[in-house]
């Protein structure tokens, strides 16, 4: 693996790992509570309709400003 490629892979590894763990924990909680994880994943991973896409963009813009405000101090 070239150093540049490895750098990209390493920087992507942490977020991917985190989402994998979070997905696993969520699935376990759903199983424990007696809900069907398949229903959950089908809903979450289905492609959003256009009006939902707009909502997502609107909310991201607001969250982005909020994240930026917090990040200035970090």
């Amino acid at each position, binding site marked *: 693996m070239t150093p540049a490629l490895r750098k990209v892979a*390493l920087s992507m*590894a*942490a*977020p991917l*790992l*985190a*989402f994998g*763990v*979070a*997905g696993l*924990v*969520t699935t376990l*909680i*759903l199983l424990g509570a007696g*809900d*069907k994880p398949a*229903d*959950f994943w*089908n*809903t*979450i*991973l*289905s492609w*959003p*309709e*256009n*009006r*939902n*896409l*707009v*909502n*997502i*963009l*609107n*909310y*991201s*813009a*607001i*969250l*982005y*400003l*909020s*994240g*930026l*405000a*917090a*990040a*200035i*101090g*970090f």
Partner: protein
Amino acid sequence: MNLFNIGVEGQYIVATFAAAVFAGQAFLPGAFNTMATIFVAMAAGAAWAGIAGLLRVTRGVSEVISTIMLNAIALALVAYLLRRAGSREGQAIVTDEIPESSWVPNISLFPDSVTKFFGLGVLAVVAGVAFSILLNRTRFGFNLRATGQAETAAVASGVDVKRMVLYSMLLSGAVAGLIGMPQLFGSSHQYGSTIQTGIGFTGIAVALLGRNSPWGIAAGALIFAYLTEQANPLGIVAGISPDIIAVTQGVVVLSVVIAYEVVRRYRVSLEQQEVAQALSEEPEMQEATR
């Protein structure tokens, strides 16, 4: 610079309220009112954050504690002032509506969609660009990063740490003041007791997820917004409470902190191996050249 502004939520509430009251008075016509209001929001957010900044530099009060406490005070203070400045509308108390000439038109992204993109959503792009220029291309940004990474080195090179703390607190508050603007000018047009809360706290999670880089925060914000929006129909479609997604988001933040540390250690051990390998090869090369 190791400054934890946990008070984004309070700054956002105070700033949005101040902005709504100011815009509702319509001191200025049309777009001038809009621009002045955005300025008022930034000033109000900065002022609220400035309290914590001043306490930190003059009295050494930890900004983590003071900003958390200021969140509670902000909520109570605005609730109190809202009864003075606002009027009752159904179940909620609201401020005077912003005159229609000052509204910012929303952008229709899809012809078949009933929802539209907030016109002031572009503030996010503007703020993102300004943030990366400030951090990477200015002396202030350099000092800010230097103070965060090695405070003693920064002090030795003449950085006034107290001033940097105060400035970054004010700046953080000013950006927090912008959070409410897209919604205020795009859909609500007034401040009401039904204002969306919790955005400031989610922002901290987004910043952690994005490692404080402008692109990282953008990715984090998109993912969190996606999860929240996609979880909405969970109750109807699958009979699962949408609250589960907040658990997922929380676990993401918790595990991303751990994952970054794991990856950092792996990277360090890789580098050590490389250096060790390079050093062990070196004597042979010297032999060969001899």
